[in-house]
């Protein structure tokens, strides 16, 4: 349970971090709740870790132009307990509170989770439901991508070599929106067997689903059914349709599909009860 040897760098500026990353065979350390265990199991063996924890400007939450900018190094606990997020993007705060355990929430970061793209992570469901964007910095520039475009596959994102995810941008929720994140947790790891984030506003719904398949996704067909019928059960039943579901010792594909529908209904009902 000891990783292979590696270099460790703690740059003081983003430019320095990008330069270190450009050196190749390097991984960004953004909390380390997934990367460090993978290294200890020798499933990952980067030559260098670039720890972002001392780079200024990567933490904190600020409101700007109707959106909330969350620094990549903002911990799950900070998201969970942020008064601004609780008021203006409560789905994200609620989802953060469901991640792992206290220790994980104190160390893990939103940027680290987003960039890792674990198919059972909690955040992606919510980030899809609130239509979040991510900012990606590279040497000499920055780009912004919709989170839905950023997420490509299991543990795979649109991050180019040498790029660093620096922040997450979520819109300020309009008055009257209702949200909920409902999760069946895997009892050993605390990851989601299935997690469903629902956000309703003015009769339209967005549903983000995690844990069910190789990557988190928007349940577009279910959203459409709800928009047309306002029928929670029908919409929820459509969430797992056509999805190639994960199967492991904790839950079979059939059970995951079933639970996805159940939790989708719960999330929808809870979101509807909070909407006005």
């Amino acid at each position: 349970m000891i990783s292979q040897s590696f270099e460790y760098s703690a740059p003081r500026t983003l430019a320095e971090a990008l330069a270190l990353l450009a050196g190749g065979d390097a991984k960004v350390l953004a909390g380390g709740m997934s990367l460090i265990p993978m290294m200890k199991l020798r499933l990952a063996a980067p030559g260098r870790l670039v720890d972002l924890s001392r780079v200024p400007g990567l933490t904190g939450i600020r409101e700007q132009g109707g959106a909330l900018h969350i620094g990549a190094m903002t911990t799950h606990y900070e998201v969970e307990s942020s008064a601004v997020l609780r008021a203006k993007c409560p789905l994200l705060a609620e989802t953060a509170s469901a991640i792992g355990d206290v220790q994980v929430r104190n160390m893990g970061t939103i940027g680290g989770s987003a960039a890792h793209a674990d198919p059972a992570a909690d955040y992606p469901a919510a980030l899809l439901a609130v239509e979040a964007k991510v900012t990606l910095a590279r040497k000499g520039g920055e780009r912004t991508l919709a989170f839905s475009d950023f997420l490509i596959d299991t543990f795979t994102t649109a991050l180019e070599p040498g790029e660093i995810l620096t922040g997450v941008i979520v819109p300020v929720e309009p008055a009257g929106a209702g949200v909920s994140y409902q999760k069946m947790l895997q009892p050993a790891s605390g990851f989601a067997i299935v997690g469903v984030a629902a956000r309703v506003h003015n009769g339209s719904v967005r549903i983000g689903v995690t844990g069910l398949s190789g990557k988190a996704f928007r349940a577009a067909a279910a959203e459409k059914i709800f928009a047309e019928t306002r029928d929670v059960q029908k919409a929820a039943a459509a969430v797992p349709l056509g999805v190639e579901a994960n199967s492991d010792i904790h839950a079979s594909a059939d059970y995951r599909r079933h639970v996805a529908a159940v939790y989708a209904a719960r999330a929808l009902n809870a979101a509807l009860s909070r909407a006005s």
Partner: protein
Amino acid sequence: MATTITKPDTLVGKRIKRKEDPRLITGTATYVDDIQMPGMHHACILRSPHAAARIRSINTHAAAGHPGVVAVFTGADVAGVGPVPCGASLPGLRVPHHSILAKDRVYFVGHPVAVVVARDRYIATDALDLIEVDYDVLPAVADPEKALAPGAPAVHPEWPDNIAFTYHQEGGEPDKAFAEAEVVVKQRITSQRLIPTAMETRGVVAEHRAGQLTIWSSTQIPHLMRTLVAMMLGVPENLLRVVTPEVGGGFGSKLNVYAEEALMGFVAMKIGKPVKWIESRRENYLCTIHGRGHVDYYEIAARKDGTVLGLKLKLIQDLGAYHQLLTPAIPTLSVLMMPGLYRFRNVSADIIGAFTNCVPTDAYRGAGRPEATHGVERMMDLLAVELKADPAEIRLKNFIGADEFPYATATGLSYDSGDYAKPLKKALDIVDYHHLRQEQARAKAAGRLMGVGLSTYGEICAFGPSPATPAGGWESATVKVEPTGKVTVMTGASPHGQGEETTFAQIAADELGVTMDDVTVIHGDTAVVQYGIGTFGSRGTAVGGPALYFAIQELKKKIVKFGAMLLDSDDVSFSGGLCVCNKSGKTVPLAAIAGASYRAMKLPAGEQPGMMATYFWEPPNFAFPFGAHIAVTEIDRDTGQVAIKRYVAVDDCGKIINPLLVDGQVHGGVVQGIGQALYEQAVYDDNGQLLTGELTDYAIPKASMVPWIESSHTETPSPVNPLGVKGVGEAGTIGCSPAVVNSVVDALSHLGVRHIDMPLTPERIWKLISAGGRA
């Protein structure tokens, strides 16, 4: 001068906080991994990635040449070291040779193949990757029933049937009882493989200096380990010292002698430097013993009025690839306890011990009794369902009566004392059983799935009379009053979290009339403490306690003789820490008596100087605690998730020394029982790969996953020992799992569900609900 003597309140029976806790919770305690020594080297072990394979060759050249590596050893190097011992003996038992490093074949994933010794742990870990092993991978079998099927891969080629032993025991006339029965109920019941998961993994430090070998190990049995490792290494036992520092949990998994203990001794002698090996969690899961692993086929015979007549059991024990210290003996405990608390006069049991390509099973909290209790308590519920009887009534009807003790069971035991209806009635009162059933009926009518589950367990503990144990079942104690009057207790039991530093101080303080702070309890160092057996099988207080009590009685005789001499009286008694002349009322305190005994200006006739006594106590019988647990559950119809709404435990462990510690034992035990009932399972795939090899996949219950445990007691003293204690270390685990499973089956019975095997995962229950109970 007359002194008024008031008898102080006794400390025994009080809720007293543990003396050992401040050092444990402030991080100042020393565990094996805290030991640092000049020149210490570190060992890492290369383990087989295959469950079954021949080793064609091992090339350690690159690893041995890696900078910082001082030695690499393989099976060929340790040929002179004796095998890992099995202490259990059964007629016809097949015992595979268990070398401390694999020779030409590996038998389970994690089987040790080579050891790398290096300047630090990082270098040693890196060097493991440089060892090349050429394996010829063979078919494996990881399931005991599959192992017994014709054509299964042979775990050990010399025994192609994979049968390590068969064992038959019967009492009464079981065939006649079944022939005459009006009702017979049958059920296959499994008790799945569990991983003990002590918070501290195993660890060993060894040092060979000036002809003496010292081994520090996280073990439950330092003296037995010394004897056995001395034999393995060919080291004179009196030149081997074993020290057990703080032990972060064992639950039976450290009631063993492991390859690594001898291996580190071997390494230390070879390299002439101290060496440390600390087990990783993954190694702990792959290589430290597992528990349970039963497939049981039960049959119960009864009359229509619910009177039980007989019980039959065919027990298939998943042994794993080897016998560890007690592996084959564990299922025999299940057979001994299969009648539970009931008047079963006719029983029959057959055990088949099956080799599998898995890590060995052995004692895990309860060790054979949780399996037996789960079986008989499930069968009593199945019988109740069959007869449409109330599960409480059918138990009360068949309990051995309070006036029938000592009670000779059909399996050859003598139950010491009991009043089995008492804790059940108390538990029924606590939950308000009548109203609870009404509430359940209302819940059912409203479409909710609510269950009430009972478990009335009996257990065998205080191991035990020496003729009935593999290595002696007595325990030892030394009590010393130091020249200043302070008291030192040395117990041969090696407590590791159970709290005997506190309970033994309570006993000694009461008996000697001193304060708790005046007593220090020492254990776990073979160079300091007289030979002892260890702590396991709920024996620490139940056997070690009486040993201490008798040692103190011996010492008191000496105290009185010295007191009489000092008071110049022939009529003296000792009480409240003072010797009193019963004629003059003059007193002399214990400290003065002790001081005089060491100064030895004058000695009572025939007495030696000093103030110390040692007692080796041989228990005349086991002790048999019992109790009743009730679990109230509600099941999420949509997902199959089980919520334990209420958990009531009424345990009778005989006389209680410290209710706080007893509560702690019950709580911890129940949590582990809930773990088995709802969450835990060691899963091997068909190739013998452990799929639950990490805490991210093996679900032990966390604080948020367990209910409030309402713990209370009845107190029926044991006549086996003068303290009246019975033992409580395993009770919670033994009583728990059937209460939870009975409760869940009860909640689903109207859907046609008769039985569910553990763990009761949401998916398993959802499938039953979806199939209307017929999945």
